């Protein structure tokens, strides 16, 4: 029945700030460390890796993933998911090719982007107003839009010759390709909207406690639909870039693209349960995937080993970081 008390000094203020910072930006820091380590590794081990040409190429290759990952960060932060982005990319690429062939490239471009937006809004409306789980809506869309792309093109790809469209995929400015610049713009915009606007805040709130946001008088269905419209639009933009880069609108573009995008977002520290996300993390996540597939080829890894090694790197990257940063993340889910 004795009680004694002892006081131990708390951590210094500086250190505490650091700890708070780390635990709050845990996801981003974690993927940054992985990215830097892999970057250093490939620079040392693969001769051709650290050359301007190669890096410029990688940044173009990964641009569509980065762009769609930006929108997907919003979607996943609301606790939803969009599995249809690969099919929408394919549909957009195919339609851009077909419409451009009619000789009106500007109309083709705008038409494709608007179509992406509309398609995304349909997904969003079904999920938000139809109260269906986004997973199942966009899974249906994954099947249906790929089918539609094949239907309208009858399976053929269309060469793109328009001098107006090709620079979207192949133009260069200040040493970087146009897709890279578009991706950079997308990241900047996404960062601003996510962190500095009401929309961004409501996106987090929907994922964190949708009922709470609803009771605060916000129409959560608009938010849920809005983010899915965003991925539709981003996927269409990625389709345009892909088609312009390949000078060919192919209905099979974007196969399995959704998994790549989701991987990038999750690698970047966004929680699939919603409520926590980071656009910068997603961008670095996408870059990481880009240098992995580039670096493994440059290292001349046997073609059969590439997917195995990719899977292992992925697991190790996340595992290492759970262990490394784990103690900061506390007991929360």
């Amino acid at each position: 029945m004795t009680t004694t008390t002892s006081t131990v000094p708390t951590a210094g203020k500086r250190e505490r700030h650091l700890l708070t910072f780390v635990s709050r930006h845990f996801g981003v820091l974690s993927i940054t460390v992985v990215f830097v380590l892999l970057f250093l590794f490939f620079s040392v081990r693969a001769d051709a890796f650290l050359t301007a040409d190669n890096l410029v190429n990688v940044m173009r290759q990964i641009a569509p993933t980065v762009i769609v990952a930006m929108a997907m960060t919003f979607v996943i932060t609301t606790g939803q998911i969009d599995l249809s982005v690969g099919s929408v990319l394919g549909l957009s690429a195919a339609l851009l090719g077909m419409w451009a062939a009619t000789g009106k490239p500007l109309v083709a471009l705008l038409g494709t982007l608007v179509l992406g937006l509309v398609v995304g809004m349909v997904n969003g409306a079904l999920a938000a107003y139809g109260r269906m789980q986004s997973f199942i809506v966009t899974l249906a869309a994954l099947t249906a839009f790929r089918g539609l792309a094949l239907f309208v093109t009858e399976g053929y790809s269309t060469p793109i010759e328009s001098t107006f469209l090709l620079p979207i995929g192949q133009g260069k400015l200040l040493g970087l390709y146009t897709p890279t610049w578009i991706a950079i713009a997308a990241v900047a915009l996404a960062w601003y909207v996510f962190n500095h606007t009401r929309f961004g805040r409501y996106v987090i709130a929907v994922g964190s406690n949708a009922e709470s946001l609803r009771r605060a008088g916000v129409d959560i269905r608009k938010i849920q639909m809005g983010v899915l419209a965003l991925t539709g639009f981003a996927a269409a933009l990625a389709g345009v870039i892909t088609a312009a880069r390949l000078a060919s609108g192919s209905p099979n573009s974007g196969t399995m693209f959704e998994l790549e995008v989701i991987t990038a977002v999750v690698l970047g520290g966004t929680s699939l349960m919603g409520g926590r996300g980071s656009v910068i993390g997603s961008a670095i996540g996408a870059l990481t995937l880009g240098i992995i597939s580039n670096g493994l080829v440059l290292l001349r890894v046997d073609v059969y080993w590439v997917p195995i090694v990719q899977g292992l790197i992925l697991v190790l990257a996340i595992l290492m970081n759970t262990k490394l940063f784990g103690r900061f993340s506390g007991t929360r889910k």
Partner: protein
Amino acid sequence: MVDIRKKFGALSVLRGVNLRVAPGEVIGLVGDNGAGKSTLMKMLAGAVTPDSGRILVDGEEMTGSGPRAARSAGIEMVYQDLALCNDLDVAANLFLGREIYQPWSRRLDHGRMHAEAAEDLKKLHIRISDTSQEVGNMSGGQRQAIAIARAVTFDPKVLVLDEPTAALAAKEVEMVLQLIRDVSARGVSVVLITHRLQDLFEVCDRFVVLYEGVLHRELDPAETDLTELVTAMMGK
């Protein structure tokens, strides 16, 4: 302000209840666990839609339904489950749905919101050092204080408090009671749900007893004692 209403889950939770709240009046809504108090008040705040019945504010039917309409009619509520976003910080929760932003750039004014949040909390004597803490990790009492602060800072006409003091320390409870007196003096109507019956006697102008989904009794605090109230709550 409230008219007949009912609601069914698979069981009837509210079986026709009428309630009228005058400006500046403090009503103590009491009843056994599961009597339907929270459900009734959620309807007033727009969070739950009644199966039938009407809600009138200043004699006019509330335009539209849902929390947005209730908010613009000046009804604010502290929910029993608090309804906070765990992943957002204190200031973001306080301003949820009413963020301050620059109209042209649509940029949120984080600085101002944090400053105002800190001030509002201070005004309410809530000791939370850092408004950029995430509410998910805060203690039960701290979370409740934030929920109260959110409801009162926006000058409601009707303030509904569903068990606002359940997790609060004694001093904070006193503060909440004082707060109720203050706002009602300013003409704000208050509906207080609580199981701390003594508190009710301190602040209420009228008791309303809900029993198994019906409005069982209405009592005047001046003419009622604790035992009478408890008896009424048991449906007698």
